[in-house]
């Protein structure tokens, strides 16, 4: 008896697909599916974020990029130039002061107003009025904030008029032009424009705290101060930490406000990392060194971002 053996491939060609291949294809499609949904976002991320960042890192390792037809690899020379520049260190100190003072003041003022708006002592209409008034600074664009405060703090402005009228100063105060006052003045403007962000977030947090906790604290004879420190603050802690980290990151990147009010002056008293980098790029056209400064700022921001993400994960 003769038997003809047909290989599996030949058999498959004649009729239905073998179950193994079909399973593999289905499996592949199933695995690719999620990537398909993600692909528009990923393509945008690659074009808009990864590519510029990689290019800037590349520029920071080259010499005379953009402005010269040919540039050479110089390693970390540009980083050395930035880190040994005394103005960079001034910019770091100013940025830390500006961001640190802003975050602390944002928290204190935001918490104060949030507590007030959450107080049962105020009626709904009064709360609505105050809520609208308090949130106003947040609604102005930074350009409006800069122009507004430049006028208010002008030597002939209303602030000087008021301080003189009430005997708080004896002469014209040059708020933004006096080397010893400029940094506190721009920090104050930033505090004014940014506290509503904290206020709104903390108010939402306050409204979410269970009343049972306060009642329990009251039974334990805790006064308002003890309730605040032992109930309110612990309950708001996750929000406070998240807000503080985000605010610190955003404030360190503040450019427009500084640029439009003082331009980093007088002298270099309000020079920030952002204005320092901008000047390197668009005033001296030293894009290589500016890229190195930008990468340093990126690394510092990444550290803060890492802390934020780690905190968020721990919270989840």
């Amino acid at each position, binding site marked *: 008896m003769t038997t003809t053996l047909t290989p599996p491939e030949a058999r498959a060609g004649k009729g239905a697909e073998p179950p193994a291949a079909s399973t593999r294809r289905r499996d*592949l499609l199933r695995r690719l599916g999620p990537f398909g949904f993600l692909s528009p976002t990923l393509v945008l991320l690659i074009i808009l974020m990864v590519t510029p960042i990689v290019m800037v890192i590349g520029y920071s390792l080259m010499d005379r990029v953009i402005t010269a037809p040919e540039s050479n690899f110089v390693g970390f020379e540009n980083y050395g130039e930035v880190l040994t520049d005394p103005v960079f260190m001034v910019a770091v100190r100013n940025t830390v002061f500006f961001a640190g003072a802003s975050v602390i003041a944002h928290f204190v003022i935001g918490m104060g107003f949030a507590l007030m708006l959450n107080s049962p002592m105020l009626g709904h209409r009064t709360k609505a009025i105050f809520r609208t008034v308090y949130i106003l600074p947040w609604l102005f664009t930074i350009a409006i904030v800069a122009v507004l405060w430049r006028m208010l703090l002008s030597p002939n402005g209303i602030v000087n008029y008021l301080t003189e009228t009430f005997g708080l100063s004896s002469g014209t105060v040059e708020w933004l032009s006096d080397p010893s006052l400029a940094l506190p003045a721009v920090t104050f403007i930033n505090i004014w424009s940014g506290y509503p962000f904290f206020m709104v977030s903390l108010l939402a947090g306050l409204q979410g705290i269970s009343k049972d906790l306060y009642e329990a604290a009251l039974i334990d004879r805790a006064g308002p101060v003890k309730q605040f420190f032992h109930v309110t603050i612990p309950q708001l802690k996750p929000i406070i930490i998240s807000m503080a980290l985000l605010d610190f990151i955003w404030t360190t990147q503040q450019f427009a406000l500084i640029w439009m009010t003082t331009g980093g002056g007088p002298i270099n008293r309000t020079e920030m990392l952002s204005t320092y980098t901008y000047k390197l790029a668009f005033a001296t056209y030293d894009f290589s060194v500016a890229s190195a400064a930008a990468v340093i700022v990126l690394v510092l921001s990444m550290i803060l971002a890492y802390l934020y993400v780690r905190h968020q994960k721990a919270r989840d």
Partner: protein
Amino acid sequence: MSNGARARKAFMAGAAGFAIFGLAACSSGGTTTDDGSTGTDTGSGEEVTLEFAQWWEPELPEGMLRGLMDQFEEENPGITVELLSGPYASTKEQVVAGAASGTMSDVVGLDGAWVSDFVQQGAISDLSALMTEAGYDESQLASQVQLNGSTYMIPVVNFAYMLFSNQDLLDAAGVDVPTTRSEFEAAAKAVTTDDVSGWILPLSLEAPNGIQNDVMSWVWASGGSMLADGQPDVTNDEVKSAVEFIAQLDADGVIAPGAATLKEQDKVEEFTNGRVAMMVSSLAHINTIRESNPDLNFTLSALPAEDGYTGERGTPYASWGIGVAENSEHKAEAFKLIEFLMSEAANGELANAANAFPGNSTAVPEFVENDPMFQTAFDVWQAGYPANEFVGLPVAEQLMRDFSEQFQSMLAGEIDVDTALANAQAAWEEEF
């Protein structure tokens, strides 16, 4: 390779393909022809579209520049001009980015302070060569900005800087318009009260051109210079004398407060509202002042010179300059546009609309003939010589900022004049 790994690899290849496609789509720019292709020569008779990036259109009466372009298009069939207009600052960033990426517009509005950097970058064309090719008569040009013997920018119109005086305030104080530094100091002291300052000095580091217009202008008005053989020389006696003079004005308390963060528009506003008696400013601001405060009685004069100086006075100026991009594939057509804008009729019309002095030496704008104030200014302009040593210097804006920082330190009493100038000299030498 596992299925998962294959899938990831396939996905990454796809994503990279998309990214390359996206980048390629973003990278086109510059001259276009009507068929949509880029950079086709017009020798074949095809339509050419020239891009002309400038900040002039928003500063001119509506439709004025477009009208001139329409006239040019009529006279030059086959060439269309597309205006890319924006404010000065954004035009600068756009031109810098274009120079970096090789996508600069065919014809670009230039500020003299940018020229050196663009030449170093190889971003703008040698106009001397284009003029020779076109057989252009250079004698009709009032000035040219040259580097290494070649022209790279032609000033189309010039905005002269002069001394603006509030005549009512001077009259009330019983002083005349000053012509020398000592007269200026005396006049400034005489008019200064609690509400009025004698003079205003904008030194903002955001736009540090106060050093050019309000500080160095005193040097040039007395025939001085801040350069020696093209190199920084800010420690010389002429610069030192001007800086000491301004320091003395500050000590006298006649300078408006807040100088360190004041900008040019603050200066004009303070003068317009009568809080400052004198300022050094551009003629471009005459109409702004008249519109904002029609009752303000002000006069124009040359900047005061050092006592005893009898030579010709340098008049500071700023220009709307023009150049051709090196990456342009239609340089001949681009130069035709420049030739048109520099022609007597078109240049006079443009100067008239901008209230500026023409770049064509034979053009006389109407406003000079019709307005006594501009007639005075024109006389001062013609009696002196145009002076702006920052034109053509490398990183000119940064040089002004370096000087401004030292100047501010000196005014704040942190360092003396000699130290400030020595520090500025060192900073400038480093930039050069």
